[in-house]
């Protein structure tokens, strides 16, 4: 497990560009997907509910229409109640004319049976007289009118209200479940003669409603005006209160409208002709189950999409980061080997970056080469400087002076001379350090001038004016000594008078340390000054420069160490003197001398 985790972490570092791309892809895809899923879910739920409602409404309307058509048919059949034979039969029955009624009896049987045959759901079509004689499809029977509800309903109506009445469901005398419809029959003087009734098999309602399904388990039920179930897919519920289905107490709201009760979605509609209610009952759980399926599908879609997105992100991030990784690997390799070349395969930003990196490497290599050469040159110059410092002639002469002083017993001067010479050599070597403090550099020049002054006597004098504020700054060693040496040998030593003066000044201007080495010696013609300055700036080839070897060395060392903005500037007037200005950066502490600029 730990190995897998390690492998995973190694492959997918959280802060890596690839991980970020994957997460960005996943995030960008996930948010709209989830929003889409939620939106789809609720939109689908709403549409589903609306569809269920519309479908239920359509189904109930269809049931209503079927029942309405059927009842209208029955109403039309009942129009036959004013048939001549029926009226004659009723009239003769009133006067008990048995013989006279034979003809009408047989005719009515035939007619009523023809009606029954016409509609197979009819169980009985009958005429009931005021005397309780009922003639129908099965002959003639006697009925107790007080127990005949339909008869009582119609007998209590007026001629103005001569519409069809419905009663039932109830059992007919043959043991069948029926509901009855009927109309009153009136005589010539609007006198009530009896009723015409039709018994319809209750199975008719089942035939209309039974096969109607609202969803998998939803159904349609019919309820009469008293709240008794007259049709239900479960026959044992017929005759029971609708409260069994809708819960008690039952108001009247279920008769119309759309609402939910517990886990049921209920829609009711009243059939005006019969005052029955058609109730559509659907199972809400089915709706929810369907929605669960949708939700599962949405979830699966989201998960699937995320997986696909991650795979695509992996692929894309791999494609996108591969050049970067190569670049990164190349950069790492470049740390060890500057000859590394980043392969550039594309022309996009990464390709451009690779190209830039390659250019940078080329420049670095070039700079490195240049730096190596410069360092090499710097060392050569330093060696030359040192060699210059420790010229055998300088040592021989100095030693000659010391011997002379010893011979003349100027012991004090000998001591000073030897001390100055020792300090001179010590600072020259400086334990191999490149940088020394300005104080040491100034002391070095002072020792040098002291030694030379002792050698040359009163030919010239010297003055050293260095600001105290700059002595702790660092400088390349042995910069001033060649300038002072030039001022002595090319300036003041050849003067006829003994009024030669060499001034060494050190001061600070803004961020620069300046040294001036000036003399009032022979000076130089302007063309020579210009040639020397051009030689110092590198504007004149080195092999053509016949003069200023020491100056050039000093200048090159400064430029190599600190850049082109530093170095020497020479001014001179023939027979008046020469002034050399040396500009250095302000260097604190033990900073290593490096080339600052090219």
């Amino acid at each position, binding site marked *: 497990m730990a190995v897998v985790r390690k492998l995973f972490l190694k492959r997918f570092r959280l802060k890596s560009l690839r991980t970020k791309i994957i997460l960005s892809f996943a995030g960008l895809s996930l948010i709209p997907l989830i929003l889409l899923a939620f939106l789809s879910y609720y939109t689908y739920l709403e549409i589903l509910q609306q569809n269920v409602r519309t479908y239920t409404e359509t189904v109930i309307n269809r049931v209503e229409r079927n029942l309405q058509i059927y009842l209208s048919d029955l109403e039309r059949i009942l129009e036959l109640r004013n048939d001549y034979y029926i009226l004659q039969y009723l009239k003769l029955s009133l006067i*008990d004319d*048995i*013989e006279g009624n*034979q*003809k009408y*009896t*047989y*005719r009515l*049987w*035939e007619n009523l*049976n023809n009606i029954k045959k016409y509609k197979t759901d009819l169980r009985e079509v009958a005429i009931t007289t005021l005397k309780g004689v009922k003639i129908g*499809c*099965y*002959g*003639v*029977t*006697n009925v*107790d009118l007080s127990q005949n509800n339909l008869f009582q309903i119609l007998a209590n109506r007026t001629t103005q209200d001569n519409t069809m009445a419905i009663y039932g469901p109830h059992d007919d*005398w*043959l*043991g069948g479940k029926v509901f009855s419809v009927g109309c009153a029959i009136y005589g010539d003087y609007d006198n009530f003669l009896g009723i015409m009734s039709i018994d319809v098999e209750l199975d008719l309602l089942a035939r209309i409603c039974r096969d109607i399904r609202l969803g998998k388990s939803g159904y349609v039920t019919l309820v009469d005006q008293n709240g008794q179930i007259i049709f239900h897919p479960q026959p044992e519920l017929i005759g029971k209160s609708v409260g069994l289905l809708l819960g008690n107490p039952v108001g009247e709201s279920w008769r119309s409208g759309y609402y939910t009760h517990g886990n049921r979605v209920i829609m009711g509609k009243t059939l005006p002709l019969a005052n029955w209610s058609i109730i559509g009952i659907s199972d809400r759980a089915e709706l929810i189950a369907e929605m669960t399926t949708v939700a599962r599908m949405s979830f699966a879609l989201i998960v699937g999409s995320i997986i696909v997105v991650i795979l695509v992100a992996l692929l894309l991030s791999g494609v996108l980061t591969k050049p970067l990784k190569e670049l990164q690997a190349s950069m790492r390799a470049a740390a060890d080997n500057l000859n590394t070349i980043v392969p550039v395969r594309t022309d996009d930003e990464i390709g451009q970056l690779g190209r830039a990196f390659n250019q940078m490497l080329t420049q670095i290599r070039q700079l490195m080469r240049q730096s190596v050469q410069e360092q090499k040159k710097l060392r050569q110059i330093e060696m030359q400087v040192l060699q210059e410092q420790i010229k055998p002639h300088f040592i021989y002469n100095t030693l000659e002076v010391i011997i002379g002083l010893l011979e003349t017993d100027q012991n004090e001067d000998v001591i000073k001379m030897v001390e100055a010479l020792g300090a001179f050599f010590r600072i020259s070597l400086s334990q191999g350090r490149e940088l020394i403090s300005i104080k040491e550099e100034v002391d070095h020049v002072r020792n040098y001038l002291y030694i030379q002054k002792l050698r040359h006597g009163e030919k010239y004098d010297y003055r050293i004016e260095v600001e105290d504020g700059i002595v702790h700054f660092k400088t390349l060693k042995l910069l001033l000594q060649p300038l002072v040496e030039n001022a002595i040998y090319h300036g003041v030593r050849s003067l006829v008078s003994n009024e030669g003066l060499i001034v060494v000044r050190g001061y600070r201007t803004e961020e620069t340390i300046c040294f001036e080495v000036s003399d009032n010696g022979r000076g130089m013609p302007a063309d020579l000054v210009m040639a020397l300055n051009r030689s110092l700036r590198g504007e004149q080839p080195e092999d053509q420069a016949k003069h200023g070897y020491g100056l050039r060395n000093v200048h090159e060392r400064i430029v190599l160490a600190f850049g082109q903005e530093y170095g020497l500037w020479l001014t001179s007037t023939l027979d008046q003197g020469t002034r050399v200005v040396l500009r250095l950066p302000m260097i604190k502490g033990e900073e290593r001398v490096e080339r600052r600029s090219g």
Partner: protein
Amino acid sequence: MDLLNRKKGSILLLLVLITVFPPVKALRVGSSVRTRPIIISIVPKSLDNPMLVEAKAAAELTARRLNVQVEWVGPFKVDVDTQIQIIEGLIRRKVDGIAVSCSDEERLRPVIDKAVAAGIKVATIGADAPESNRLFYCGTDNYAAGVECGKAMIRIVTAKGWTDRELNLVILTGSTKAHDLNERIRGFKDATADQIKLNYQTLLICDEDTTTAAKAVEAHLKKHPETDAFFFTGGWAFLGPPEAMPVYDQWCQNGGITVAMDTSYPVLQAALRGFAQALVGQDYRKMGEFTVSYLVCAIKDLPIPSEFIDTGLELADEASFSELLQTKKPWDIK
């Protein structure tokens, strides 16, 4: 005939007694238990047989006279299942008496016995179920009627001089399950056996339906014009318009012989047209009257004279058709 007259006399005397002196026990029962009048339900084989209309009228008149209610309930067409269903309904309604005309004695026997077991007085009318527990049968002696038909056939064949010939005879009957019709066939066959040579070609069944009967006869004659004679166990074929049987009409004119049961008005009219040479009739009025009367007796625990209440026979031939028609009331039911 004397026996018949004596029977008639004793029945009438009994009816007078019932009317004038209702049995004390019956009154007591009626006053203590009954809250409605006595109901007697007559269940014919079908309602569409107009011959029974006479029986219905007689039954209703008798009921009115005896102050009871009579019902006439049955299937419109012959249908034993509906008959059974109706009797079941009557049992549930707890009527006092039931008279059944059995279209299928085997099928009806259990429900008759069930009604009897329920305390209902049950009789059979016109068509018996002798194996059942019914109280009595009121109607024609159907075997005797068949014998009379057979005798009439012999007479006609003899008169035509066809006794030596083997005659192709077809029987038209309402059902093979009805006891009355089967008895008539049995009587006919017994009577003609060894008397004339009859080749029973086929048995046509019409479900006691007038239209079916006429169509069956017509179809048979078209296919078998060699037919010599018909025996109709009922008059169904003659209850419709004679114009509906042109082939039969022509066959009759060509000398065909027909002996039929029933002497009702339309049957006699058809016979006069030449559609039959001999008729044996039943007395439907007596059937209705006696059935109601004796069921009332039974309900009132009065004795029933016999298990078989014979309503007698009426014989007619070409010589008496016209005279007999005068005694009949014309039907006006169509």
